[in-house]
């Protein structure tokens, strides 16, 4: 998975997708995950990193991560790879 390079992400969690012209807002943890995706980290690393610092189980987060990624796909923010 790779985030489309054209996506503009601000520090405060706002995203602008020039391809579709749509704007989005992210919560802090969403910002973290997107950053890690931009760095093309594998899924396991992302899960480990989050579980380490947040009060959540690996399975719960993995579920949410899948959901998040499918949304990103729906909003056309991922490049096909």
């Amino acid at each position: 998975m790779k985030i489309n390079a054209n996506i503009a992400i601000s520090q405060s969690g706002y995203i602008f997708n020039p391809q579709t012209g749509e704007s989005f807002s992210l919560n802090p943890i969403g910002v973290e995950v997107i950053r890690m995706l931009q760095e093309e980290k594998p899924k396991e690393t992302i899960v480990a990193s989050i579980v380490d610092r947040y009060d959540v189980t690996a399975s719960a987060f993995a579920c949410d991560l899948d959901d998040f990624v499918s949304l990103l796909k729906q909003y056309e923010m991922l490049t096909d790879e």
Partner: protein
Amino acid sequence: MDSSKKIRYERPLIKPINAMMPGKTGKDTYLVPVLDVDGVPVSALVEKYGSPLFVFSERKQRENIQRAKRSFTTRYPKVHFAWSYKTNYLDGICKIFHEEGSWAEVVSGFEYDKAIRNGVSGNHIIFNGPAKTKDDLKKAITNGSFIHIDNMDELYLLSDLSDELSIKPKVAVRVNLDTEINQIWDRFGFNYENGQAWDVLCKIVRMDKFELKGLHCHIGTFILTAHAYAVAAEKMANLACNVKQKLGVNIEYLDMGGGFASKNTLKASYLGGADVCPSFDEYAEAISTAIYKAPFKTSDLPVLILETGRALIDDAACLISTVLSNKRSSSGRRFTIIDAGVNMLFTSFWYDHKVSPAQPFSKYYEDVTLYGPLCMNIDVIREFVSLPLLNRGDHLVIHNVGAYNVSQWMQFITLRPYVVQVSREGKVSVLRKRETIETIVNQESSTTDNL
């Protein structure tokens, strides 16, 4: 890192920013986390009694009835409240109302018996309803209860019983009337405008088999305008005066029934329920002013009886529920499934209940549809509600559930849960135990048992 130093988790959220008309959810809802009920932490309640869980507040219940009494008794000299058992017939709830001086209003033999078991004396029970059996009526007549006649068949049945028991039943006539709002419940009682009610009253006086004590009307349910009661009260008061003048019978009481609105938001409503619900003062002002207009002598003013149910108990209870899972619809809409469905929250068919999370949350919200645990398509608690991000295992508090849910719920798919009450001193007691499989199976028998 150990978990105590870990940051509170919420799932990653990406939300499109839309500059468009406000959604179905209306204005921004300013939600506040509800961490406790009357001082008892939600988490402690769930730990002891499980989830879902109905929690009633004694303090709020008493505050409601005291406020209602204060609004009415300072405006009208003789007022009685009769607790409507069908709204919530749990003994623990009913007994508190009776302690605060309420009579009992029942609509079936079952409710009647419950009232008697709660120690209510026969002459403090009002028996309404279109389906009173012969045995029910016999009991009511013998105990001196007030029977509100709904139809002619009932009238003749009462007349026969009066002969059989050699007692004159104490009765009132149920009147339906046009109160200038949409609801005209002409299914119940006798109509005022077409003269049906007057004919029945004449008949009752002529037959001389009854003690005609009062007039009863119940103009609808969830009435959002106090003016409707003013219209009804004026017509009822005038009817009472006519009965006195032309038939020579002194009407001792006017029962204006129930129907006051509560703070719930009706499904079709744009404004939140708490904003449009009239206060007890408004209803009291409307009713008392209307009765005073009629030509009663001050010493002959009839007693005012109110069968208020919902307005007294709805906001005194909440339902604690737990998030079971989250999913997404085909269009990307978030669905959250909680463990309380329409089987136990029947009133979600009529209201958009206010829902609050029971743990702290961030400012990030999501548009969500709340579903119950049943595998039925109709099992929707909230179609559209804007809620903070909820995780599996998070708790929700659904507000204003005190009326009708605990009397109308179904034992369907899931067993019915605990109903508890927080007392004025903050102690929790059980009003109704959770059902177990024995509760159900004990009522059953099968052909194979008898082999």
